[in-house]
């Protein structure tokens, strides 16, 4: 488990010394199986900060709201960063979306996040509970005590995670953790299906989408000024919620995130309709890795995929 005391101490020092103007971290939610992002600028409030197995949102996302609403970042931000959050920050640096001086990365080696829905309704019905990750086990202690296997209750994203420790940080809370990704059975299965069945699978998934755009808004790397989806002339995607427009929306997003997505799962976590967005993202990420030997969000000095050229790049699809 992460030493929350140490994390708070770091945050307090950063704010008190003026090193950063604001710390973006997690706070307790209104129920025990939810956590929420919080922005703190008063050193006396750092005790709100927590790090528990429900901190699923990618906090790099909150920089984009600052940028959009205030026409740029207002000062320096301390960001509590899991592996995927740090990778999103690095990717933004690669793209010159932010500069290395804009953030102070408070790295937290991440043991993985629990998907509350996998705990079952009877467990969620408990008024209050504490959840801890201990090795292979996830222990829920409330009115009752229940022990789960890690493999059964973590988000799939986290079970597949290769970089739980930030590749880059200004301070690391505790010891780094090695990634030990599970086999990606769902993707392998999907890839093995005939094209018509895959098409049907996505048609079903996309027809559930209510086009709330939570997936886009929760994504740290969907920070474009003037998103293609808001463009009215030409209107690339109509607001009609039907399978053709929904598919278009998701394909546009998938392409815009290819070679940029850091597989944090913030999009899928935010989706109310259970659209398996990560399967699409992972497919693109694996293809990019295989074809271009490229993993985004690892090195702030690396060129973004689309800005890089290597004579060895495959070009089998270019006529």
């Amino acid at each position, binding site marked *: 488990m992460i030493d929350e005391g140490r994390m708070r101490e770091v945050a307090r020092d950063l704010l008190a010394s003026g090193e950063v103007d604001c710390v973006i971290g997690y706070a307790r939610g209104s*129920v025990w199986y939810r956590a929420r992002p919080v922005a703190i600028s008063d050193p006396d409030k750092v005790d709100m900060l927590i790090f528990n197995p429900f901190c699923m949102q990618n906090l790099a996302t909150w920089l984009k709201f600052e940028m959009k609403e205030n026409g740029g970042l207002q000062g320096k931000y301390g960001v509590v960063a899991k592996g995927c959050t740090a990778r999103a920050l690095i990717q933004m640096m690669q793209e010159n979306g932010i500069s290395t001086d804009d953030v102070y990365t408070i790295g937290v080696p991440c043991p993985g996040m629990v998907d509350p829905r996998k705990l079952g309704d009877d467990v969620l019905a408990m008024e209050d509970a504490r959840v801890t990750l201990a090795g292979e086990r996830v222990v829920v202690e409330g009115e009752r005590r229940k022990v789960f296997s890690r493999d059964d209750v973590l988000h799939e994203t986290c079970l597949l995670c290769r970089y739980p420790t930030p590749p880059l940080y200004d301070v690391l809370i505790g010891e780094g953790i090695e990634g030990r990704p599970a086999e990606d059975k769902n993707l392998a299965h999907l890839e093995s299906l005939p094209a018509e069945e895959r098409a049907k699978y996505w048609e079903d998934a996309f027809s559930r989408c209510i086009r709330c755009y939570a997936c886009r808004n*929760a994504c740290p790397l969907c920070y474009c000024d003037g998103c293609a989806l808001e463009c009215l002339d030409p209107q690339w995607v109509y607001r009609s919620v039907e399978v053709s427009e929904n598919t278009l929306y998701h394909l546009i997003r998938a392409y815009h995130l290819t070679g940029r997505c850091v597989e944090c799962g913030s999009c899928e976590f935010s989706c109310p309709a259970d659209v398996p967005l990560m399967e699409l993202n992972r497919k693109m990420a694996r293809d990019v890795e295989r074809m271009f030997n490229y993993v985004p969000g690892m090195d702030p000095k690396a060129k973004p995929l689309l800005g890089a050229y290597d004579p060895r790049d495959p070009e089998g699809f270019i006529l």
Partner: protein
Amino acid sequence: MAEWWFMEPDAFHAFIRELGERFMLYAPARRDGIVTFTFVENHEDVELSKRPFTSPKAAFLPQTEVLLKFSLRGERVHLSPAQRPESPIAVVGIRPCEAGALKLLDPVFSSPPEDVHYTLRRENALLVGFACTSPERWCFCTSLGSSPFDEDGLDVLLVEVSGGYCALAVTERGRRALEVVRDMLRKADEALLGEIEERRRQAERAMKTLDVERFIARLEDMGDDPIWEEIAARCIGCGICTYLCPTCYCFDIQDEAGLTSGRRVRVWDSCMYPEYTLEASGHNPRPKRVHRVKNRIYHKFRWYVDLFGLVGCVGCGRCAEHCPVNVDIKEIISEVVRR
């Protein structure tokens, strides 16, 4: 006195099947593992055990509705307005709060200019409610004048009891609907009536009451309170809270046109989006999340009250349950009341 009828699972299925003959069935059904309100073809797909993540408002106010089709034929423009909705809808498994929510949409769409698509659907509909024997932790209908077994606004109320369901005909229309399976019903005996009463009490006991009246009064001078900044700081402006809300009704009208033909559609819109208030000049009167977060709360708890004398929230808790960053309406109410 109102009469309760007992139906075994078989009778229940027969009832739904019969409804399916005369109405378009709109009910919770499982689609790839997730329960959602939808038009169902096969009555066997209806699944009442879990409250869908969507509300049933889309039966009356579809997320996408074609209003008009147009095409260019030679020198002439041909217009064909959408047909008026003819087939009556039976919503099965609607919760008491959601029936209450429809009563909040009614004044909006029936005030002049009347929206006939909405009002026709509403007038012809049959609402078969499903009482909440185990309210969700997010629910707070009892703070808003309703309750988990509230029959108000429904035609039939179903309660799950041991061995099947009990049905109450709330309106004449509901009585006639039940009439069709009359042979398969038997009058609920004392034991069943006792069970219904016990379940009702249990469900109500499980819910805490919030002081909504005081909340509304406090809002008056809270426009500049830091609480809105605190909430807005984490809001991602996704609109889930509004799309899933049974009482939110904002829409946009857009033309989707190709070179020679197109259509005019009405689609849901959300006050949580920046484009919602963006003016043609480029000016946006609600430029930040804090303005939009405040708008959602103030619209439901003050301006709707001023307009129609009703509170624009029924306490279903969906906005809190599905918000990705845990903006919790119950917490907001108790926090404001506590101050």
